[in-house]
């Protein structure tokens, strides 16, 4: 049953748009957004969950991907076949540079340094007046993939985002079971001993960081195309926090952690914002504008009482 579960989910995801009426593109668009964030969260899960590296600067890579692809689009390079690989390459490069310096540190220093470097990218982008500065950059159109497919259609974009997510998840699955994946998890488990049995730990961590950064960059490129808008806040450290919340909600170090977390968080936000609960509104009239209070409280509760996240709870139930 467990082995069939991913296929069932995939089948449902593939069939979902077909069940939608032509006017219900809102749900398609929303689902696409979940897929993109799931990819971003999954890329963070690689370094956070599998690698044990608490990077608070992952938004920098998502943001780099978003901006590189947006800048190319605004300069007339419409093809996604150029724009998206460029985004991935740029993010990988950023991850290489930031990782090379940050990974020389440990523990708390590492957390704060990744946070600081991400903020550095934020300020850099914020000061680029040519591309909108702090107001952000609007795109006239989504990237184009040719092949007779118009990504402007929510229908087409949905499948593109789904494909990217599926590829990312499968890649993570293979990675986790590969030699590299074993070493990374060993490093997470006991870094000193991993080095003491002969693994060049720094090199492995850096490689992991770069891979995750690249995947994050792809998510960023998709995000920018999806909303046809990008803004420096996508690089802000609080956005890294959001991604971390998703991973922790979904389950750190579990394959579906990023997906579950993204779906849960975005779903929750949408629920609060768009579906008014009358009895709650009676007590607290403006509650819908203060959704992040609820998110914060939920996150705090999870950290204090259910640190394994949703996937962890599901796994425990299966074994019980």
């Amino acid at each position: 049953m467990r082995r069939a579960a991913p296929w069932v989910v995939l089948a449902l995801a593939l069939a979902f748009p077909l069940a939608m009426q032509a006017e219900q593109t809102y749900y398609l668009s929303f689902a696409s957004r979940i897929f993109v964030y799931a990819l971003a969260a999954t890329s963070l899960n690689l370094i956070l969950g599998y690698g044990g590296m608490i990077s608070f600067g992952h938004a920098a890579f998502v943001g780099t991907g978003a901006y590189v692809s947006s800048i190319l689009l605004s300069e007339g390079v419409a093809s996604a076949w150029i724009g998206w690989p460029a985004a991935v390459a740029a993010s990988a490069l950023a991850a290489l540079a930031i990782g090379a310096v940050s990974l020389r540190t440990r523990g708390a220093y590492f957390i704060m340094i990744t946070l600081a470097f991400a903020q550095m990218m934020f300020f850099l982008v914020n000061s680029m007046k040519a591309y909108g500065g702090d107001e952000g950059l609007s795109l006239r159109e989504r990237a184009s993939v040719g092949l007779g497919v118009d990504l402007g259609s929510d229908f087409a974009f949905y499948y593109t985002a789904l494909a990217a997510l599926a590829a990312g998840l499968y890649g993570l699955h293979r990675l986790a079971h590969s030699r590299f994946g074993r070493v990374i998890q060993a490093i997470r488990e006991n870094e000193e001993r991993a080095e003491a049995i002969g693994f060049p730990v720094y090199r492995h961590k850096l490689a992991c960081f770069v891979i995750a950064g690249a995947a994050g960059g792809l998510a960023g490129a998709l995000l920018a195309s999806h909303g046809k808008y990008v803004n420096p806040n996508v690089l802000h450290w609080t956005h890294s926090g959001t991604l971390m919340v998703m991973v922790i909600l979904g389950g750190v170090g579990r394959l579906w952690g990023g997906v579950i977390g993204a779906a849960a968080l975005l779903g929750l936000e949408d629920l609060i914002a768009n579906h008014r609960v009358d009895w709650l509104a009676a007590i607290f009239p403006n509650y819908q504008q203060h959704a992040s209070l609820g998110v914060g409280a939920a996150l705090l509760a999870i950290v204090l009482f259910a640190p394994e996240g949703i996937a962890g709870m599901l796994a425990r139930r299966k074994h019980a």
Partner: protein
Amino acid sequence: MLELRNVSKRFGGVVATDDVTLDVKRGEVHALIGPNGAGKTTLIGQISGSLGSDGGAILFEGRDITHARQHARVRSGLARSYQITSMFKRFTVLDNLALAVQARSGSSFSFWRPVSAEAPLFDEARTIAGEIGLAGREAAVAATLAHGEQRALEVGLALATRPRLVLLDEPMAGMGPEESENMIALLERIRARITVLLVEHDMDAVFRLADRISVLVSGRVIASGAPAAIRAHPEVRKAYLGDAKA
């Protein structure tokens, strides 16, 4: 095979190892003894590369490894085990050993092929498990092992890297008599093909196994030589052995 020349290390104002000069000959079991706090674990750390040295030189098989990274030293045949068990707790015994085997057999920058497909890796891990007395316990999660089994795995991880010289830091720490006998038997089995630098407090084991003994007190080597000579050495008796023990 291993030469330490004037090796020293300070931590702030504290001198942990002070001008240590000693050598380990190929094929021997060389014991390093001394009171608690003498600097034995620090010295092991310096030899293995997990600690940097503030002075002196370390030569392994003629090559200066004083500034080599730890993983490079392991790759060239120098491994260590830890006084306080340091393993991959949530991995099984088999996976622990397989990791060490993986480290020295090919690149680990392989991202696609599942490790489970590599039978030779696990076969060798099973062999090592047998050697260290953990046959039948391969599927056990390391954290659930009994203390003696954990210490065996601890040594096994070092052995799995196929070292030519192994640094064992109190492998018998916290063991009862039967477990100690098993460990001594293991060391007797490996001494034919691996040179051993053994840090131990268990004097029985030391005098049974050692070809030569060096004594470390307050970071300094105060004596080095054959077991009989060490046993009779006046300074050693005063500083460490005491007249009752020997």
